[in-house]
Structure formats: structure tokens, C-alpha cells
């Protein structure tokens, strides 16, 4: 039952509500026929309810749980189990042997079979009997390379806007980057704009009217990443 905002609000002294008072909703787990699986219940507050509460980050605040010592103890035990589970997973993952190079190669070759080439961008051909084109995917890769080459910049996303499949079409390029914390963001953005424009001018025939650079994020130098 939802509150209808157009309905006159009930005042304490108001007329009896048109709907009879409704009992609080019954936890479906209490009435479900699958109760043969009988929920473990070592107290007035079920394990399921505690787990759900923990999953929800203990919000909204549940005074019944938060004021019940046995529930709080169970909640603490659950939280502890969860953090131990995270440790166990980390241990498992770390114990995995380094991936077999041939396994990785196998995956990557299947990935390349499904490469995302995008649209075809025509190139002028010295020989009128043949047509040449470059894929949008290859141009994107060029844009990424140009943006990444600027110190302090990592390209997040890029796109070519316009009718690239028409020769001589005027297009614009959109690049979103993450800038290294501590760099002068406008300078990095300018350098990316210049690098992308220069790369595209040198290596494609696209008529680029604008390169729009958005700094979408700022990242910290990854100290153990070996940059």
C-alpha cells in the first residue's frame, strides 16, 4: 500500500482511515512452504535477517538488532567470518600458479578473432581500381596510443564523431583521460589534444575539426606497478 499524496493526510484526530490497519509484513521466510529447510534460528532474530542486515551495511539502523546482545555477538561473528573469507580467497588466488603462457595465448587469439573493428574509414587510393580503408578500431587504437604517450595521462575512452565512412567528412574526436595526481590538469589535457591531432594528421586522412579532451578521473602513481 502506497501513500497517495493527493489523499487528505490523516490527522491524529481525523476520521478513521479507510483502510483497516495492516499488520506488519510477515517475513516470507516465516511462512514459505520450503520451511522444511527450516531456517536455523538460535534466538529471536534469525541468521538470515542478521546476514541481510550485514549485507546492507547495517542500514537502515535496526534498533531491535542493535540492542540485542546475542544478535550483536552473532553479527560480529558473521562480520569476522566475512573478513576471514576475504583472506581465504586472497590466499587461494595467490596460491594459483602463474598462468600458463599458452593458456593466455589461447584466450587472446580467440579474443582477436572477435576484435572490435567498428566502422570502415575509406582512404584515398593511388590506384583508382582499388579501394583502401582503415578500421575505426585501428584509429581508436592510434588515439589511445597518442593520449597514453603524454606523461601523466592514461586514456580511458575515445570515440570518433561524424560520418567517418564518407571520404573527406569532417569529424571530431572525443577523448576521456585520467590525469596523474599532481600534474597540471589543463596542461595534460592540452598535450593530449595536440598529440592526438598530430598522430591523426600524420597517420590518417581524417579531417579532424576538433579534439575534445575530458579529464574524467585523477589517478595516483601506482607505486608497485613498476611504471
Amino acid at each position, binding site marked *: 500500500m502506497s501513500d497517495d499524496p493527493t489523499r487528505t493526510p490523516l490527522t491524529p484526530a481525523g476520521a478513521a482511515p479507510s483502510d483497516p490497519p495492516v499488520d506488519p509484513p510477515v517475513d516470507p521466510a516465516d511462512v514459505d512452504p*520450503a520451511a522444511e*529447510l527450516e531456517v536455523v534460528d538460535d534466538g529471536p532474530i534469525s541468521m538470515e535477517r542478521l546476514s541481510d542486515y550485514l549485507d546492507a551495511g547495517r542500514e537502515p539502523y535496526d534498533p531491535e538488532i542493535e540492542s540485542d546482545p546475542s544478535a550483536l555477538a*552473532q553479527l560480529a561473528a558473521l562480520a569476522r*567470518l566475512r573478513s576471514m573469507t576475504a583472506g581465504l580467497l586472497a590466499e587461494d588466488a595467490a596460491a594459483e600458479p602463474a598462468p600458463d603462457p599458452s593458456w593466455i595465448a589461447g*584466450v587472446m587469439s580467440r579474443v582477436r578473432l572477435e*576484435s572490435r573493428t567498428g566502422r570502415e574509414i575509406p582512404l584515398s587510393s593511388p590506384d583508382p581500381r582499388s579501394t583502401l580503408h582503415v578500421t575505426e578500431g585501428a584509429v581508436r587504437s592510434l588515439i589511445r596510443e597518442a593520449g597514453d604517450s603524454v606523461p601523466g595521462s592514461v586514456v580511458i575512452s575515445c570515440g570518433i564523431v561524424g560520418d567517418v565512412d564518407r571520404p573527406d567528412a569532417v569529424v571530431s574526436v572525443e577523448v576521456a583521460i585520467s590525469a596523474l595526481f599532481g600534474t597540471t590538469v589543463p596542461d595534460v589535457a592540452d598535450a593530449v589534444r595536440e598529440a592526438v591531432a598530430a598522430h591523426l594528421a600524420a597517420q590518417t586522412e581524417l579531417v579532424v575539426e576538433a579534439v575534445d579532451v575530458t579529464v574524467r578521473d585523477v589517478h595516483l602513481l601506482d607505486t608497485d606497478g613498476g611504471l
Partner: protein
Amino acid sequence: MAVDLSGAADGVLATRAAEGDERAFEVLLRRHLGLMTAYATRLTRSRADASDAVQEASVVIWRELPRLQTPDAVRGWMMTIVSRKAYDLIRSRRVADDVDELEVPSQSGAVDDPERVAASTDAMGALRTALARLPASQREVWTLREVGGESYADIAERTGTSVTAVRGLLARARETLTREMEAWR
């Protein structure tokens, strides 16, 4: 010159991979491969099957990345695909084996083998032991939830039960595990 992407955030790698950057995909895959393999091993209880399931999952991850709405949450999404592929494999094995043994693969897996479990005397070892002793159905649901972070609905679908049954199994697994871990605080 290729920039080093090893420090790039998951979301950056996922976005780049979605736009076709194969190198970013490989960095992302290598970063989470240990976890994906450990998860698949727990589900299939076989190293060979886990390797196959993760390989299939990896290709699907690549294919479906452009449709991922929240690139920052790519890790959990990858784990979901791993379990999907692990269950595909388990199902195909059941058909191929043509046996009426429907219990998910036997204990003879690489996971929590007795030697490893017996050798550990710490709390983590106790958790491994407790997990290994859980009834298979509880352990399965617990793994999907706590290792894979999957929703109750997805778990119900994977295991062919109802959400209510999943919740009950999970509650009992948690009850047992927290009780057994009491001694290790």
C-alpha cells in the same frame, strides 16, 4: 610505445577493453585470473575443469564487455560469468557421464585437500576444514554467495532451486561456520 597499464584501475581497463583495446583486456584478465581460477576450482572441484571454464568465461567476458554498464564493478561481473561457465561445464559433464549421481563432483579436487587442511593449524585452516565438512549443497550456495558475490536470484537459477531454499541453505552454512570459528577468535 606502449604505456604500462598494470597500474590502471579496473574501470579504466574495462572501458578500454570494451572499446576494443585487447592489451587492456589482457591486463585485466591477468589481474583477476588467480581469483577467477580459485573460484572455478571451488565450483567444479577440478583444476582441469576450472581452467576450461575460466577460458570460456574469458572469451565471453571480452564479448560482453561493451554491454557492461558499470565498468568499475567489472571484477564482480567477471566472477558471475565464471560461475555461469563453470555450471555449463558441470551440466555438460553430468550429461556426458550419463550417471544418476547428481551430487556435484566428488571431494577429490584440488580444493582443500586433506593434507593441506591438516597441515594448517591457524584460523584460516580451520575455516578450510569447516568448509570442507559442510554438506555439498550448503557449501555450493555459500561459495556462490561469499566467493562469487552473486545475488540470491542468480544462485537459485544456477543451482536449480528457489530463492527461499538458497536463503535457508546459506543461513545454515553461516550458522555452522560462525559456530566452528568461535574457537579461533
